[in-house]
């Protein structure tokens, strides 16, 4: 897949939390769980779309809840006004 700056920022946040012994919460937890399950399903033979949908359904996570507010705020060209409305109320 194309590299995607927000993914790298989420991974950096997750790595930082692990290194500092802190718990994963909010979007960082959602992102981590989603990616683990999605990649596992793809490894088992699922196609990307099925694996992606299954990972969202498994954790009952909205697709809008996979990126942290600070990541959304930092990349305005990569997140739309619906994200901004839902995350920041603007």
């Amino acid at each position, binding site marked *: *897949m*194309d*590299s*995607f*700056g*927000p*993914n790298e920022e989420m991974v950096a946040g997750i790595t930082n939390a692990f290194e500092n012994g802190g718990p994963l919460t909010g979007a960082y937890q959602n*992102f981590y769980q*989603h*990616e683990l399950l*999605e990649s596992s399903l793809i490894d088992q033979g699922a*196609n*990307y*779309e099925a694996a*992606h*949908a299954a*990972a*969202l359904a498994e954790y009952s996570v909205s*697709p*809008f809840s*996979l*990126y942290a507010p600070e990541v959304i705020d930092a990349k*305005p*060209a*990569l*997140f*739309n*006004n*619906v994200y901004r409305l839902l995350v920041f109320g603007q």
Partner: protein
Amino acid sequence: MTKDLSLGKHRRARVWLAELPDAQVQGEQILTFSIGAQGRSVESTRQAGLELFIPVGPRTMYGLLAGTLTPGTEARLEVQIAISERQEQLYRETMAMGYEHVCVGLPYEYAKALEQVVLATAKQLKSLPVGKLWIDYAAHGRVGSNQRIFEHLTICLLKLLAMESADLSDADLLTIFPNSFTEAPENVG
């Protein structure tokens, strides 16, 4: 003619040539601008469209854009873009993810991105066609659309409309797409 193309890495595109998708924007406003163009004028009216499905991990970038290029006499590209902020009808033939809510229309945030990317990349686009471009077919996803995907849709659509042959192979069509859809078009050529 409609063609579905695999762009690798789970990325897909649908291309309309000499026809338009069933996604006409009922524009509430028109954004108009023009820019000097170095390409040739088309000899007759051309229609084309593109739909992109670009997975990037836990997110999938999505958008659809189409329009009509008519001949012009001055060395300029005149662009008109139909803007629609309200939710229009669902676009049901979409290639987007099943959970995606895809509506016909082009909100201002994407229309402005179209204008900005044309102005930013015009000098790099030696084939920027001369004429009048009317962009009034579009669809966007509630989750997956963003300014960046519409920037790439715009540049790819301009390249498609500027292609000379009427009988384009899949290999020909693949030349309009960048290697990366997440970087700004001016950074990926």
